């Protein structure tokens, strides 16, 4: 019993300690304390995970205040880990002016604390307020240099979208409360899972949740801010891309049964998420600067996570969430190494694969993935496996360099190894979340498979047929991101005008005429 009591209390300690650390920054930035707090948070998350799996603590009480699901602990561990690394990194990266350091660390800790609230709580109202607190505190980090015009513009755009997402979330929360008469997420999870059909209000709530998740994950066409907030310091981007933006996916995972029973929510996720996945990834290909590439990549990765949720593949979505966070945090923090990465590419330039290469690669990959699927009797949906087969096709086909070509057996070995690593990781997460059958079923699977084929074709055209005159036009449209963000920005300035800071070195724009005619 006492263990149980500790178990429910302990998660509160994490956000609380982060907030306390945030307010102890008055005199000077206390980096060591901040780092210690995130480390303790990480260890607590791990301990809780162990305690629950050994049944020292049970999550059977549906009216508990903390830990909405097993997935919460995983995400909690992830966020505290990213926070831990991030603070250690920021310590020398952001060093310099002590006022700036204090301000930076304070808001970083508040943001992390708010994220921790969202992840630890099982209470929907707390979740909604934590959600609000994240965007408010993150806003301070996004405009960390308040005189940067584009940073402010992007942050305000995000500010507006965030309010819409919060309205959706709050709406969903209230509807669910009135429908199920409980504020507890796990209780609703159980209730919905036990029932066969959703009430219309529940369906509406599911739709609102899906909307909130899509906006949070910067899906088309509300994506512009994510690209433009690379105006913020690198570790802020790392935190945003690794620990905050994916909360949309977390939201769908903890409300999984609602989503899989609502056709409308699923189709919305499949269409918006699917299209974003493909387009954003192709746009990424055309961009020249490293952080902007990373931002487009995040959008597209989040799109795939949405799709996986809509297909009922929650374990895959969770794997994606974790793996992508680690990858993206690293990629941002390490983005200064881009000069050397591009040097490595230049030292061994690629050779265009021949048709034969594509054919062999395609057959081998389908063989590998198909073989595994048959052997393990993989259930539907199949489109994620198709995606993996496409990736392996690329790996095998594009192995040629100008002065060296990797041997086929060697590269097939690598492909097989990747496939095995992937399936092991994927299935080990089924310990924490379960896949659920969806109401949309095979139609959704087919739609995604169709998109993936287009995707592959688009990639090959953009990469190998750039010289065609009509491709030049298409490519320009991709490079411009289809002008979607321009529309949104204009609308934004119209609805919510904001006086942007004057650029750092303004020409005196309003020239007094006397001065000109002296």
């Amino acid at each position, binding site marked *: 019993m006492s263990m149980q009591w500790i178990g429910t209390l302990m998660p509160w300690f994490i956000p609380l300690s982060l907030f306390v650390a945030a307010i102890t920054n008055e005199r000077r930035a206390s980096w060591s304390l901040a780092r210690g707090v995130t480390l303790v948070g990480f260890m607590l998350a791990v301990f809780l995970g162990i305690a629950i799996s050994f049944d020292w603590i049970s999550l059977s009480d549906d009216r508990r205040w903390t830990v909405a699901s097993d997935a919460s602990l995983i995400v909690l561990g992830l966020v505290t880990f990213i926070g831990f*690394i991030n603070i*250690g990194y920021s310590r*020398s*990266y952001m060093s*310099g002016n002590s006022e*700036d350091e204090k301000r930076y660390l304070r808001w970083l800790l508040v943001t992390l604390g708010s994220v921790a609230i969202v992840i630890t709580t099982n209470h929907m109202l707390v979740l909604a307020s934590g959600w609000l607190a994240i965007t408010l505190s993150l806003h301070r980090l996004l405009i960390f240099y308040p005189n940067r015009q*584009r940073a402010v*513009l992007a942050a305000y755009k995000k500010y507006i979208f965030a309010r819409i997402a919060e309205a959706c979330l709050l709406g969903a929360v209230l509807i669910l409360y009135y429908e199920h008469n409980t504020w507890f997420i796990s209780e609703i999870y159980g209730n919905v899972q036990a029932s066969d059909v959703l009430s219309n209000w529940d369906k509406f709530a599911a739709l609102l949740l899906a909307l909130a998740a899509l906006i949070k994950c910067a899906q088309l066409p509300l994506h512009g801010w994510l690209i433009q907030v690379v105006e913020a*310091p*690198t570790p802020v981007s790392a935190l945003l891309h690794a620990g905050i933006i994916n909360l949309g996916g977390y939201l769908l995972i903890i409300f999984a049964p609602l989503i899989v029973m609502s056709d409308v929510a699923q189709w919305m996720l499949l269409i918006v998420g699917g299209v974003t996945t493909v387009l954003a990834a192709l746009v990424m290909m*055309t961009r*020249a*600067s*490293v*952080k*902007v590439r990373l931002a487009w*990549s995040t959008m*597209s*990765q989040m799109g*795939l996570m949405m799709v996986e949720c809509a297909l009922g593949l929650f374990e895959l979505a969770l794997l994606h969430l*974790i793996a*992508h966070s*680690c*990858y993206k*945090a690293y*990629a941002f*923090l*390490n*983005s*200064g190494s881009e*000069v050397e990465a*591009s*040097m*490595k*590419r*230049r*030292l*061994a330039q*690629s050779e265009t694969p021949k048709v034969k290469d594509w054919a062999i690669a395609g057959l081998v990959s389908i063989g590998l993935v198909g073989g595994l699927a048959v052997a393990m009797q993989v259930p539907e949906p199949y489109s994620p496996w198709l*995606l993996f087969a*496409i*990736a392996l096709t690329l790996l095998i086909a*594009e192995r040629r*360099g100008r*002065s060296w070509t*990797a041997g086929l057996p060697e590269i097939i070995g690598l492909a097989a190894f990747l*496939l095995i690593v*992937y399936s092991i990781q994927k299935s080990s997460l089924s310990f924490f979340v379960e896949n659920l059958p969806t109401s949309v079923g095979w139609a959704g699977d087919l739609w995604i498979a169709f998109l993936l084929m287009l995707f592959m074709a688009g990639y090959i055209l953009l990469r190998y047929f750039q010289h065609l005159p009509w491709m030049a036009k298409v490519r*320009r449209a991709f*490079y*411009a991101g289809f*002008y979607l963000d321009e529309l949104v920005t204009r609308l934004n*300035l119209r609805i919510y*005008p904001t006086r*942007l800071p004057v650029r750092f070195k303004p*020409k005196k724009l*309003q*020239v007094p005429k006397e001065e*000109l*005619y002296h």
Partner: protein
Amino acid sequence: MTAMNKSPTSYGEAQARPLIPDLSAGQREKLKSACSKIAPTWPLDELVAVNPWWEMREQHFTEVSAKLTALSQAQCLMPKSYFQEVWMEMVSPQHLKQAIEESGADYTIENLERFLIEDDEHTHWHNISDFVDSGRDRKYKMAWRDEITHQISQFCADFFRYREHTASYAETYQGLYSEWLATTRQDKGIEILMAEDGLTEQFMSLPDTAEELVAEALTVLRVTDESLEDYAHALLLDINGWASWVAYLRWQDRLDGVENNLMLDLLAIRIAWERVLWRHQKFHDRSVFNELKVMWRHQMNILPELIETHKAAQAKGWIWQRAAEIAYQSALHQQLEQADQQNAQKQQAQPKLQAAFCIDVRSEVIRRALEAQDPRIETIGFAGFFGLPIAYQPVGTEELRSQLPALLKPQLQVKAILSQETDQGTKKSLNKKARWIEWGNAPPATFSMVEATGLLYAFKMLRNSFFPQEHEHPINHLPTADAYELSSDNSPLSLDDKVNLAAGILHGLGLDQNLAETVMLVGHGSSSCNNPHAASYDCGACGGQTGEINVRVLSFLLNDPELRTGLKEKGIQIPENTRFVAAMHNTTTDAFTFYGPEELDEEMKGWFVRASELSMQERAMNLGLDHLQGEAVYESIRRRAKDWSQVRPEWGLSGNASFIVAPRKRSRGQNFQGRAFLHDYDWQKDDDVSLLTQIMTAPMVVTNWINLQYYASVCDNYVYGSGNKVLHNVVDGSIGVFEGNGGDLRIGLPLQSLHNGNNWMHEPLRLSVYIDAPRDFIEQVVGEHEVVRQLIDNEWLYCFRWDRDGTIERYLNQSWHN
């Protein structure tokens, strides 16, 4: 509101294309001159320092400063707040008085003090886009200025992506303007974003070639011939970053003797915007347009006055700048006098070790530390590429990397002699790395890559945070050897050529006699992780690379018995037991690495270890490590080199202020605080003034580039520096960085290389050059070389003569001043 002003006639005018005028010869001349005023910026992986005003050196610094401020607000002087800070601290009334006297103006100290607290802002040149902006409702609409910069910059980032180099860059990147036009005509986004309906039409009517466009725009805008050059210059300064990149492509083509006119294309793009906004305004808001027209014409009339106004306003600022320089120089003069007195009494010991270092200011610290170890140690200062005009081809690659000053074109190719297996093995591993990176970035594969290997990155983060590895540079860590193959135009270099090369270098180094048993050739390089500007800490004389290849190749040559026989025939005697040893000084950690088959003796090794420690202790203060002691200091400094989050691995060449060209024995024992470039030179061994000519036309120019890069990056980091490192966003791998999402390409040094968060770590002073040579030597070089004369007479640097008797006099405008 705007729609009401659309009249049918104005549309008719837009559609009926007027006859396109031709550029007159006078206009061409002026455009050419404007285009030539932009200095290049090198790519990040060979980031050498550049004097951003190099292409304007034929004018006096103060003239250039006034013009740049008038045209684009670029600052060539520190702000008043800076002089407030140094006044009565570093700069005393006596310095200020001297500066006033020199200027000949009738200022008083009170005048100048008042200047520091006065507010005297003046207006400056406005491009059409600036005027149009001033009439815009900026609460609901975005500013044109930023949008134009953004649009051009984003386009250039895409257009100037890495391409297979053909005959010349002019050819590789031809069609800059026409590609921009095609892109912009297709772009519906600008019209939407800027909330300006009908804007796209204006792009439709633009002429198809750059020259036609410029000619047409100049007619439409009625640009007078008198203001054309300055106007064109102002437009290029608006996109100075990309203009500098284009200037780089031009520079490279010029080394190959190819004409490159890309700059005119870039200018055409910028002026196209002016023309578009002009006409858009004309058809959409006639009343605003009329006002614009009058203001625009008037501005052209008053432009010369405008520049004069700025010149007058800056005059006092230059006195302050001069006073700060006098403060530094007078202390240095005293020090140089003392040096002579002290060194006159010392006995010269027979050297046991001679070590040649790069002239880099960081070498001054380590040389002093090394010399302090034993009187039998002699050090020499020489440009760090050691006179080898080489390009290095790393094993297993097609790459040819220049290892010499950016001013020069490589004459020789160098390749390490390695086994077939090493070559194959390197190719294999390079291909593996490159393909893996490309696979992870290929859109359809990136998801599976992330899902399969994402967790690996958690371990990478842990490793980089807690168990950082030594930084590995993709090229410098490829296998190399102690033996090299030198070739010229694909045919091996003959022994004769090698002998001549070596003889010239030895003569330059002053090593054609009295050689010690061990002669060390010390190159330098830095190590920092995750740092886009890493190359800016490497050796400028080696083209922004480490000097490793140069010292290894040179010691290989000089140890070659065959070559030594050849040298003997030329009268250069290298004793049998003399051994040349290649070594590297790591400027971040002060560690030494020695190359070659033989070990150094223990005593010598000990010298180097203690010298590094001494140097680290000296640098600890500026690195903010003064609270640490002993081993902890060294540990902390070494960690910086491996830390992926370190934005200030070392202070590079900040502080640089003087260049001393004299025998080392005259300056030995003096502490120049790492602020002096030191070049060895003995005029008594330079009968034909050829060595001095070489020094004043090459190393002195390089030091001027470095000095003014630091100067400019401090004075105006927005225009000439690359801003805040924590926002940097690398463009296409090596072109440069954006600060944040976009904006212009940023050139020069980041703030973190110059500023510790509270104070500037570099004091912007023009270089003071001290040459130990007779008057007529210096007069001869200046007389024969226009570039040198321009640098001296237009006060881009100070040229002093440091006579053997201790007198120091300044050479300016063909006369000597005390």
